[in-house]
């Protein structure tokens, strides 16, 4: 029903559209976006490690600065930070590059006519505007922090933690603990998806609104540009948030066991329990 009304102003599909098939495997436009982002990262890594110097040039500083910052924050979390620092940096860089890739002109606007109503099916869609991508990253994070909890506490210790302290409260506390573990999965993926998809909708709406008055007010060119700047900021903040939350969840999984006995004082102030 709402296709006619909302379709006239803007068209944003909530799920990624299929471009072509490879066997039984559907290739969507957000997969192209994710692939482009990872190719860009791989090319940058290959190019920069090839000509790395002790006195870094501009390009080397550009890629070393965020890595050093995230590594510095992660190193302050627990004593076992070397085990997961690569995951945190990887999450940050991947999300950052795929978010900013989505703001380039041509992404989401160049495409083919779809089968249904002649709507545009873009070749490239920002990867994080698809719930599949963000859910995949969250599942990786979830598996890693449960793995760390089991590795540090042992399977029995992890089960004991899920059951809770007064053992007779187990029928009540076990479902609550399970849901709170799983809600991290949902909140991580929904936060990133919601922010990036809402950004796409916002930009499309602003463009649609201002192109109507573009011959009256030349100023209308600048209104979407302001929101592009906002989206740049949101892109880096959300990448940082995802990486830092992944780090915090792993820190909690490791730190719960120590209970202050193991002398890692830095873990204490990170070990609040976000949902």
């Amino acid at each position, binding site marked *: 029903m*709402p296709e006619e009304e*909302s379709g006239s102003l803007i068209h*944003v599909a*909530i*799920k990624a559209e299929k471009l072509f098939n490879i066997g039984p495997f559907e290739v969507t436009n957000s997969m192209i976006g994710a692939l482009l982002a990872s190719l860009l990262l791989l090319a940058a890594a290959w190019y920069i490690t090839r000509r790395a110097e002790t006195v870094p040039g501009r390009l080397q500083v550009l890629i070393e600065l965020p890595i050093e910052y995230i590594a510095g924050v992660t190193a302050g979390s627990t004593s076992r930070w070397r085990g997961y620092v690569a995951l945190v940096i990887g999450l940050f860089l991947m999300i950052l590059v795929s978010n900013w890739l989505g703001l380039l002109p041509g992404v989401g606007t160049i495409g083919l006519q779809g089968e249904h109503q002649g709507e545009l099916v873009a070749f490239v869609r920002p990867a994080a505007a698809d719930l599949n991508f963000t859910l995949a990253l969250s599942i990786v994070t979830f598996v890693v922090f449960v793995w760390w909890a089991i590795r540090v506490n042992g399977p029995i210790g992890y089960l004991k933690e899920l059951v809770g302290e007064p053992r007779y409260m187990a029928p009540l506390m076990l479902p609550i603990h399970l849901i709170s573990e799983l809600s991290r999965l949902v909140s991580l993926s*929904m936060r990133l998806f919601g922010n990036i998809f809402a950004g796409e*909708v916002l930009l499309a709406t602003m463009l649609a609104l201002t192109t109507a008055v573009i011959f009256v007010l030349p100023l209308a060119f600048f209104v979407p540009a302001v929101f592009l700047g906002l989206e740049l900021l949101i892109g880096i903040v959300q990448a940082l948030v995802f990486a*830092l939350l992944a780090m915090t969840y792993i820190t909690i999984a490791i730190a719960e066991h120590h209970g202050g006995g193991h002398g890692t004082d830095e873990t204490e102030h990170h070990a609040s329990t*976000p949902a």
Partner: protein
Amino acid sequence: MDSNLAAGLAMIGAIGPGIGLGIGFSKAMEALGRNPEAAGAIFVPYILGLALTEAIGIYCLVVSLILIFAGG
């Protein structure tokens, strides 16, 4: 029509996170004013708190976006 109305109503839930973000930001600025050297130490917990508060608003946004673009 109905789903658009429902989408608008769903965004009422964004009031709470809005107030919460305001409180969090004002407290962070207060702490920064008292102790400007602590900017680096405040930044990471501040960003995390901001993200966790904002997530509730994002849930409302996702619900209303689904109602607009995918709802019947």
